[in-house]
């Protein structure tokens, strides 16, 4: 129920003003440390050699792509069910960031697949479901602007975002449910990570950096969204005053 306290945009802006510098600093620090460990300290892999370093940007962006989508869907649920004004604002603000993470995940995955697998792209269940995630983001953002009435656009986009939520567990477990070219999970496994600690450190540092980046940019975009809404209300009020 803590989230309810921040559901009020004015209160959220006060929280954002305090949190933004911290998230920004943490993002810069974690990413700098992650790059230093990922490029210089961590060793080459026993079978993939230096190419394994692509993992340090590919895997965190994949995690954040799924996390950001969950934020979009969560915001949409709170907007549809409880009519929280902040729910839709957060969902709208998170979508472009998540699209960016998905794009990074797809491109770096192709750049990793070509030298290691021998193919830029294959239509296996993991790669296909991540491509579906990318299209869900694009569809969500297209629907937001597809109606003259922003309320209707917001509602249609929210419904799409919630429906698309089923894709998130499919992405996560696609590598376990079906034969895929993509290897199964290395970190989030029942029996502990299958990554040597010297490679796990840069991976987790980059993941923390990407998460803080997401939080910081999300706060920025929420601020912009709240300002845009106030502008709309002020214009409406001014028009009413004149008529």
């Amino acid at each position, binding site marked *: 129920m803590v989230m309810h306290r921040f559901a009020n945009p004015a209160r959220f802006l006060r929280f954002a003003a305090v949190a933004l510098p911290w998230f920004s600093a943490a993002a810069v620090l974690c990413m700098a440390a992650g790059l230093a460990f990922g490029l210089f300290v961590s*060793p*080459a*892999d*026993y*079978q*993939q050699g230096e190419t*394994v370093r692509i*993992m340090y940007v590919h895997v965190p962006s994949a995690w954040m792509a799924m996390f950001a989508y969950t934020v979009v869907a969560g915001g949409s*649920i709170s907007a*549809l*069910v*409880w*009519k929280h004004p902040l729910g839709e604002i957060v969902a709208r603000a998170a979508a472009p960031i998540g699209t960016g993470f998905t794009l990074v995940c797809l491109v770096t995955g192709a750049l990793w697949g070509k*030298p*290691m*697998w*021998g*193919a830029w792209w*294959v*239509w*296996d*269940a993991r790669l296909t479901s991540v491509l579906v995630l990318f299209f869900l983001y694009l569809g969500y953002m297209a629907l937001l602007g597809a109606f003259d009435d922003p309320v209707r656009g917001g509602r249609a986009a929210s419904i799409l975002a*919630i*429906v698309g*939520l*089923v894709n998130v567990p*499919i992405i996560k477990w696609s590598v376990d*449910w*079906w*034969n*895929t*070219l993509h*290897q*199964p*999970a*290395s970190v989030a*496994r029942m*029996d*502990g*990570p*299958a*990554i*040597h*600690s*010297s*490679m*796990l*450190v840069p991976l*987790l540092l980059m993941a923390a950096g990407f998460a803080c980046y997401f939080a910081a940019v999300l706060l920025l975009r929420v601020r912009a969204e709240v300002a845009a809404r106030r502008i709309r209300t002020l214009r409406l009020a001014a028009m009413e005053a004149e008529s």
Partner: protein
Amino acid sequence: MTRKRRRLLVLVVALGLLGSATALMLAAFQDSLVFFYSPSDLQAKGAPGDRSFRLGGLVEASSVTRSADGRTIAFRVTDGAHAVPVTFRGILPDLFREGQGVVTEGRMRPDGTFEARDVLAKHDETYMPREVADALKKAGRWKEGEGLRPTAVPGPAAAGGGRS
């Protein structure tokens, strides 16, 4: 409050239906969602006719032979239970070696040999430095192409000193 409750209820029911519908659909299309067949799948269901399909598994140890001109390569793809002979003419990915996972695409010849047009390397989810891999192999605790079994080995991190 009741309207919010009703909206929440509608949403939960809708999501439940959507989830079960998706699960049913995915279960129904199970076969076409599979990227490759294993040798055991072929044994059980037979090759899908003259159609091109993918066969995946591990390159069987000491099964790789090259033709005199070195361009045609023959090996066996195994999943432990069954093995299928494969021939391939072309450039292999860097990761191709005995014990390594591969996914090959091609047709089954009438003589039971799989004629591959394309060979992709499939690597597993273990990542570790060369020295750790060598040390684990030397100690006989791990074989390449085989996942680490934490029941026997307390994770690769333990071998390198300390799990983070």
